[in-house]
């Protein structure tokens, strides 16, 4: 059960115990983390589970797919840290990962 640290834009932190194999989005919605709507349920269809992950943690993740990039690309608020949390699978390799929640998604 890796720990995932969600950090709201105002600095409020939420440490949750996530299950290996589930997505960061599921870890968020299962724990009532604010700002992750996930309307499509993890289909990479809605871009309402946008999160920001710094370079150090990002390097430990599988790279984003073309579909994910396309969904993110037109968001004027996207940064190089942007990912869709439904596309990131929890594993022991990312124990302690820090997930920042963007202000625009509130």
């Amino acid at each position: 059960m890796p720990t995932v640290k969600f950090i709201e834009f105002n600095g409020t932190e939420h440490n949750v115990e996530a299950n290996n194999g589930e997505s960061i989005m599921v870890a968020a919605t299962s724990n009532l983390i604010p700002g992750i709507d996930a309307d499509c349920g993890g289909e990479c269809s809605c871009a309402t589970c946008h999160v920001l992950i710094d370079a150090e943690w990002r390097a430990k993740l599988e790279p984003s797919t073309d579909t994910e990039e396309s969904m993110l690309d037109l968001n004027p608020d996207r940064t190089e840290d942007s990912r869709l949390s439904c596309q990131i699978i929890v594993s022991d390799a990312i124990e302690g990962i820090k997930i920042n929640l963007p202000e625009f998604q509130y």
Partner: protein
Amino acid sequence: MSGIVVIGAGQAAGQAAASLRQEGYEGEVTLLGDEAQAPYQRPPLSKAYLSGDIGMDRVLVRPENFYPDKNINLKTNTRVASIDRDNKSVTTESGETYEYEKLLIATGSSPRILNIPGSDLEGIHYLRTIDDVDGIRGAFEKAGKICIVGGGYIGLEVAAVAKKAGLDVTVVEAMDRILQRVTTPEMSDFYHNLHTGRGVNIMVNTGVDGFEGDGEVSAVLCGDTKVEADLVIVGIGIIPNVALAEAAGLECDNGIVVNDHCQTSDPDIYAAGDCTNHPNPIMDRRLRLESVPNAMGQARTACSNMLGGDKVYAEVPWFWSDQYELKLQMVGFSADGDSSVVRGDKDANQFAVFYLKEGKVVAVDAVNSPKEFMVCKQLYGKPADAAALADPETELKSLLG
């Protein structure tokens, strides 16, 4: 017992449970659902769940332990019999009564049922619940020939999964084209050719008069034509579940009538999801939608307002459908357009049709084109140059201004 009672335990209800706790509500929350499962997502049922690519754990709206953990009283296998507005309570079929301060009706919709000779034969299925799909999955393994009645999104999604599973697939559609109710002739043609190219037999202008079989279905009868089938899926639309609301005297008209706050004609009763008829301030008309984003959005709005908020529900509708390796993402209603423009390559199964009305973008059908889908969400209602939209050299970002 009091607090907030939700009739239904589908996607809107599941979202409502989460939203109420997320907004800090600490009172009692009770979900009364007539199915055996905790709230689950319906869209995968005709797609990845039917094909077996994902299991139950991936379709739940929240994990099962979410409800006890968050002190949500989830009552499954519980059908509500009536709403008593005077005493602000609901009574279940088994005779239990739940009082409410606020009530959310999230009763969803039910498949339109065919009532024709032979419709009670074994092997004829509808697709709405997880139990329906578990039955269909079992039948898939034994079936050789499947006939799908209705060429809408559900029917075509099932056709794609059945074809991939190696079945002999026929789609029977009463109108002169598939997807007639929901899209343009251009898109109907595209999907018709896609399916026939994969070996699906599509019969349009073909009404179904009955089913033949000895205990189990063996053929679908369409006028003089007999379509052999050992498995039949009927997907001919859904109807909103308004009976409880209607019996309680709430205003209903093609759905439970709500205002832009998701509030019914009784100020203590809200409604969300497929069962509602709601105003859309962006489109300036009333809508009844069969849509997950709508269920989730209305649930959030209703919850916020039940807790004393002042939130207006105003979203441009969007939808998606997966068939074979093609993902169709839609924004708005193509029928609203007075002209259309294609961007991309239909032969490569990667294109988007933008629909404009008086020069303003009002809808898109985007096939394997998520960027076009996203741009339409942002361009909705804004003027756009048709030639620029069509030109693959135009950076979509530049259109956002």
